[in-house]
Structure formats: C-alpha cells, structure tokens
C-alpha cells in the first residue's frame, strides 16, 4: 500500500544533528499515535515559493512516512505513507 495523504494534523519532534548540520525527526505523532523514528532514510529540501521545506523519508517500524517540516511559516505534515507492499 502506498498513499498520498497530505495530513497536516500531525506533530513532529525534531532534534538537531550537529555533525550533519541539519534537523532530524525523533518522533512522529499522527492520528493519535506516536511513532518512534527507527531510521531516517534520506533528508532533502524543496522549495515552495520562498519557503524552504525539509523532507524526511523515515521508517517507523512497519511503515515508511514522508514527513515535511516548514519553519516559516511553520507547519508539519505527513505527505506519504507506505507499508512497502504493492497497491
């Protein structure tokens, strides 16, 4: 299953990785459940107009999520979710 959900009712707990020089997510709280981030597959950025959005491909156990964090204006979202199985 692989879905585009674009859900902004989400909270992301982020820490700063001083070695890589970028923020990394630790927990994702989504639909009433908190998921511990097991693995950050890749971190990249994209631009929406003048805003810079941090994108994280993260694994939270049995699910992979695409989490987006924008600092100004501040918002967080889970944009994609996948269990790695076919549709």
């Amino acid at each position, binding site marked *: 299953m*692989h879905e585009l959900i674009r859900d902004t009712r989400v909270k992301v707990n982020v820490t700063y990785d001083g070695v890589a020089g970028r923020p990394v997510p630790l927990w994702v709280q989504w639909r009433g459940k908190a998921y511990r981030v097991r*693995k950050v597959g890749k971190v990249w950025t994209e631009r929406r107009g003048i805003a810079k959005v941090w994108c994280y491909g993260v694994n939270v156990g049995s699910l992979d999520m695409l989490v987006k964090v924008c600092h100004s204006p501040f918002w967080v979202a889970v944009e994609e979710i996948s269990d790695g*199985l076919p549709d």
Partner: protein
Amino acid sequence: MGALPHNPNECFYLHADMNASFASANQQAFPLWRDKPLGVTPVNVPGGAVISPSYELKALGVKTGTRNRDARLMGPGVVLRESTPPLYRQMHREFARILRHYTPDVYPLSIDEALLDLKGCPALKTRSMEGIAREIKRRVREEMGEHMRISVGISTNALLAKVAAGLDKPDGLRRIDASNAEEVLYGLKLTDLPGIAGRNEGRLNQNGVFTVEEFRSADARFLSRQVFGSVEGWHWTRRLRGYQDATLIRGWQKGFSASVQTDVGLSRPDVLLGIVHALTLRASTKMRRKGQGARFLQLMVRYRDGTHFRAFKRVERPVWTAPEAFRQMTLLFNRQENPGSPAVKLIVDLSDAVPGASDQLTIFDIEEADRERRITEALDAINFKYGPYTLRTGLMVGAAVDAHIHDRIPFGSVSDVEELYADEEAWAVPPELL
C-alpha cells in the same frame, strides 16, 4: 586511417553513472521499498511509462519506457510511485559535490551521470584511477546513502569511458584501454555504443556494417562520405580508437519541448489553453536560458478517441519572449477543428532554435518589444529563484490547471541538466581545495 592504432596513452577519463538512480533514491528514502520491484513514473496512470525501474523490477523484464499497465502485469508485488524531483536534485547535488573533490573538470551528462577529466589532477599523485573510482564509490555509499550504487568506467576518451561504465551494472568498475579495447568492444552490439540508435544503426546497416568490429575497422573516408555523409564518420573512427574530440558538451540544441499526459480527457477549452500556456512557458524558459529563439512552433493534441490534431507555424523572426510565444501558441490552439473533444495528451514544441535570438531587435514597435522583453526577463528571474510557475499568467491559475502541470525532472538529457545547479553552489570548488 584504417591503420590508426588504438590510443596508447594513459586513461584520464572517468565516467560515473548512478545505478537505477531515481528508483535507488526512493528506496534510499523509504527503507521498506528496498529489495522490492519498484518503478518510478512521472505520472502514475496506466498509459504513463516507467522512467526508472529498480534492479529487482528490471529482473522481471521491465525496461525504461515500459507502460505502467504492462509493468504491473509483469510480476507479483510491483510497486509504482510518482517521481520526487526535489529528492533527485538533492542526490545530483550531493553526487556533484563528491566528484568535485577530485577535479574541477566535471561534466554532468545527465542528472545521474557525469564525466571527469582527471588529467594533471593532484588526486592522481597519491592514487591510481581505479583507486579514485573505488574511493568515489565508497563515498557515495557513506555520504549519499547506503543503498546508492554507482558504476564507473575508465578510459582514454569520454565515449569509451561511458561504454566501460555500462559493462558491469550495478556497482561495476571497468577500464577500456589499448590492451583490451578489441576484446571488450567486439563483444558489444552496435546499439550498445552511445550515439548509435535507430537512424545511425540503419545508416550503418545499409552500408553493410553490422558489428562493432566492422564499424571500428571501417575506413574513415568510407564512414564520412558514404555512411554518415559528414565529418561525423571521421569522428567515429577516432572515438572508437580511444581519441577524444575537441568538444565534450554541445553548446546549443535544436528543439525544446514540453508535454502533459493524463488519463482523464480534458475538454474545457480554458483549462486546455492554460495547460498549453504552462507548457509553452516551460519549453520557452529552457530555450531562453540557452539564449536561443525558436523559428518553428508546433502544437500537438491527442484526443481520447484516438484521433489527433497538429498545427505548426514557421516564423521569420525567432520567437524569444514569453508573451510572443503565448500569442503564437494561442493561434495554433484556436485552429483545432473539434475543440470540445476530450484531450489526453498535449505537446508543445519550439524548434529550429537559433542562438543569439535575444539580441535581434525589431524596427517596429520598439517600446512594446522592449516592454515584453523586460517582462520576460523578470518572469524568468523570479521563476528561476523561487521555482517553476511561481509567477504565471492568469490562464494558468486554478486547480484544474495545477493538477496537470507537475514539477518535471529532466531525464537522460544533457541540455536540461544545467537547470539543476545553475542556482546552486554544488559545482563550486570545495573550500578545502582553494
């Protein structure tokens, strides 16, 4: 010329090619997709095509260009997902940063491959070419992600380095030099050589050349006069013997196009025209970035019932500004005979492009021309800084148009790569080398 020996010099060209780049990048980002048959497609509709299959998907027989509906039928567990252009751009920048550590002469050939000219580079004082290649491979895994793999080819010229990189995929490392050139090249098909496909293969076959061995041992005069009909034949004689041409990258290109495909038929004329303008903006922006103007404009529409419409126009003075391109495309769009018919594909093509078009001035309407020119420059500057379609015309505004104009990633094209890092510092010399 037939007796020209293979280039006996040392190898200084290194071709680095990311394996299944888009699919690997997505597998890197989403760990659950690793080791699964994943295909990346620009638009996930049955009529769309897979542009980057993972190696697991390739094993099922899916190639680049296989239709999505066919790919799903070729094996169990096939996952298709839409492309993520910002991720690939980031990968390209990281790749570029690694390569820049070894030589300033890095020529990006597409988003996932680059050619390095290492002649005279300090890195070669402490390591061999193979040593540098292994180090690049290790750094790609450590700095870009453990799932990323590259193939490296080493040779005395760019063509053979690319051929060498394609020999042992994935994660290969091969060298082609005077000692093994015949053995390696004679095992290949003509179409395995970059630049030989379709028409060039036909030309060679028509003249009795069917294998790489026949091609390599053919007389230069025969190739240039009879087969290619140009100096190109002479270039091929030298390339296949390991000599490098003077130019590595083409300076300008002939045509610029943009297209949109959808599975639902679009019949609203305002939405269709908005999409045509968006495509015109995309193609003409690419063209202007090259400093070129088009003398041939073409619009193609394919309808859901299988019919199609094609209109074109040749203009005296090259079209360069955005307003002029919009005007011309609107005229072509209005020529449709059955405008209400649902369309599934739109292609805008600006070709017969000539360099230096922006410098050509008109003697009529100087003020108006100057105004359009300044509007175009401002439009390009803003869209370049903040991303495509940040500033657009009124017709392009609206959810119906937005749904069809995706951020596209240039794939397999040399000319589009410059867009990726023109505004980036990725290709600047790293501070430690200054």
